[in-house]
């Protein structure tokens, strides 16, 4: 079921002849623990950084460029998605120097709409699949969901892990599912992915359900082992969604993973990041925990909707020197 390459690499990293749940459990349990209080304190400390003037202007534009502008509602319509795509391409119609966002993030069935609306731009289409947000469906459904999105032109797939399997210790099952979805992202048929390239796979850990930082670390490593291109905190459908300490732990994970394997993996906090100040704190964290290489939309994203407008308001304040109001930015 899982791709041979992911399995082969996992065997090598784990130093085992065959991947078993037991060997995977041993490996994950062998990761260093996370002290919750210490991790919280470190995140809070980074939260006291003060980003002013030129660095603030730079950070605002960088953050805008890292946004996966998101709508994930049952009520999403074609026009709602088109409207979101318009906003993604011209976040501030009054200021053409405003950067575009990185991607729009939508349900998989709306991918064709977004692909069409964003044609000609560099903005990616990201689709949530695998029976998002609960992930409660058969593997066949999850694979079909994913393949459909990729075929429809999604550049990025945001999948959810099976939290039930993870929490009950069926790590091999989680691994296999991620690896299988990864393989589905790579499929390339006649109507295949744009540019013929594989879609990048973001693996949503739904850290709010994993509850402990130790679990967040293990899930991060498990996802990376199985072939994730990105690890993502949350679906945004439950609280807590992204938090600074959880993102801190995931940034440590991708940093350590690159040290171990040489492969760079992206990080995407999603949900609950609403203000420019929040975004700058996250950027500080990326900068100081993972480092310079991750300060790039290719390696770090914000899954957000209302964040964009706050960034735009702050951007206008910096440009005009006066505070702005909600009526001066577009709602979508």
């Amino acid at each position, binding site marked *: 079921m899982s791709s041979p390459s992911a399995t082969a690499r996992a065997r090598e990293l784990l130093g085992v002849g065959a991947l078993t749940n037991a060997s995977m459990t041993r490996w994950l349990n062998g990761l260093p*623990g996370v002290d919750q*209080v210490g991790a919280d304190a470190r995140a809070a400390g980074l939260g006291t950084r003060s980003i002013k003037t030129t660095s603030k202007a730079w950070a605002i534009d960088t953050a805008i460029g890292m946004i996966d502008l998101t709508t994930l509602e049952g009520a999403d319509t074609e026009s709602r998605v088109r409207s979101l795509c318009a906003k993604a391409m011209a976040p501030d119609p009054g200021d053409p120097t405003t950067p575009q966002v990185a991607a729009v993030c939508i349900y998989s069935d709306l991918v064709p709409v977004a692909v069409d609306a964003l044609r000609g731009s560099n903005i990616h289409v990201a689709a949530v699949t695998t029976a998002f947000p609960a992930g409660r469906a058969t593997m066949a459904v999850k694979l079909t969901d994913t393949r459909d999105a990729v075929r429809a032109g999604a550049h990025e797939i945001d999948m959810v892990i099976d939290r039930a399997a993870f929490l009950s210790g069926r790590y091999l099952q989680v691994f296999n599912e991620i690896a299988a979805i990864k393989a589905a992202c790579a499929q390339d048929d006649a109507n295949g992915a744009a540019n013929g390239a594989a879609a990048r796979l973001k693996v949503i850990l739904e850290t709010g359900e994993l509850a402990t930082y130790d679990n967040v670390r293990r899930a991060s490593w498990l996802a990376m082992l199985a072939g994730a291109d990105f690890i993502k905190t949350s679906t945004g459908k439950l609280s807590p969604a992204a938090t600074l300490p959880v993102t801190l732990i995931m940034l440590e994970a991708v940093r350590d993973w690159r040290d171990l394997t040489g492969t760079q993996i992206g990080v995407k906090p999603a949900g609950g990041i609403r203000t420019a100040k929040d975004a700058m704190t996250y950027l500080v964290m990326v900068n100081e925990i993972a480092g310079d290489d991750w300060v790039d939309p290719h390696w770090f994203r914000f899954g957000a909707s209302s964040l964009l407008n706050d960034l735009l308001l702050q951007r206008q304040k910096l440009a005009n020197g006066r505070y702005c109001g909600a009526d001066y930015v577009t709602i979508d």
Partner: protein
Amino acid sequence: MAKFEYAPAPESRAILHIRPSYGLFIDGEFVQSSGGSTFKTINPSSEEVLAEVTEAGAADVDIAVRAARKAFDGPWGRLPGAERAKYLFRIARILQERSREFAVLESLDNGKPIKESRDVDIPLAAAHFFYHAGWADKLDHAGLSDGAGQPPRPLGVVGQVIPWNFPLLMLSWKIAPALAAGNTVVLKPAETTPLTALLFAEVCQQADLPAGVVNIITGAGQTGRHLVEHPGVDKVAFTGSTHVGKAIARSLAGTRKRATLELGGKAANIVFDDAAIDQAVEGIVNGIFFNQGHVCCAGSRLLVQESVADDVVMRLKRRVETLRVGDPLDKNTDVGAINSAAQLARIRELTQIGESEGATRWSAPCVLPERGFWFAPTVFTGVSQAHRIAREEIFGPVLSVLTFRTPQEAVAKANNTPYGLSAGVWTEKGSRILWMADQLRAGVIWANTFNRFDPTSPFGGYQESGYGREGGRHGLEAYLRTGASR
């Protein structure tokens, strides 16, 4: 060049009014010295003169002690504890209200980063007053009465001498319990950092604290000696070097003065192979680079289990490289200025000795300002117990890394020092933490954390790190006459 540069984010000095010169705060007022000599206090990050300060002579000390005695024998001594408490609550509140002012002044005079003065020193100072305020009318319930049920009583006039590393915080550690217990005080701040103590004198005025209850006299070692040796002083509280602590202990020999001494340390921060590695690295960094390493309980000796030593040191260096060294008033500064030229010279001397003894020196690649006193965060590896940098208190941002193989060896090395102030233990194994905590001969054991302070938590050392505790019920006892010691 990094993609994400942080623009300067300096805290404003506008909130502050530093007077060109300060007298002594005696009997509720600022007064001129009878002798009249002065000295200058400078900003260690720029060498700019901040103010001229009075050097109290023997006659000034005598006047201050008499003022304190008069207050003790007078209104303060008769004041019910509940009313005394209100003064302390007032002081706590005023410190909170004026916290930004205090933080800026502390960073200017001391060189510590504003984020530390703002987030640690000043809030904790206020917390100490708040905590002790509540004790003032509850001393009978502190569990300090003797078997006959006699309630504890204040000692009288307390002479207090504090260091330059946490000027206002050390002041609060001293004054808050002293006043809560009903004593009056004469306090001498360090000569390089007198300004927040002098601002605190204004707080006493704003609180309408009765004259003479708190007296602040400035000066250097000689002033401190006059104070400690003054026959009118009933108790001496000193925080500072072990060298001076011993001299004080000698000078008090044969008298009936009480003493508490908080002195130096050479704490081991012990990291086991199963530690929560990222938090351990933070703890190591916090342990030695917090407040430029000007911390008596600093984790200046890293003892790391051999099996993870390379990994820990790699992570440590990577982390230290992200420390931002520079302008103490910049809100993003992690490591500020060394407090004085003399201290800088001492750090340089010991680090040179470390190199000549054969340890491997690594300093964070940071650009240091040209003016002022600066020292880059430094890590020595390949250090052994015999090296002076593993034995002597450097009191600067310099870490010595040693290794161990077994818990027993870690304990043996950690305890192999005449000091015994603090120690750190990093392991995810609960029973090992408790075993280590039993074995380590130190007054404060931080397990999976480091450099935490709280007014309710007793602080103080074993052996040559001094005696007595500050904080909590234990600290209160040092300011009270109880039991047979009445």
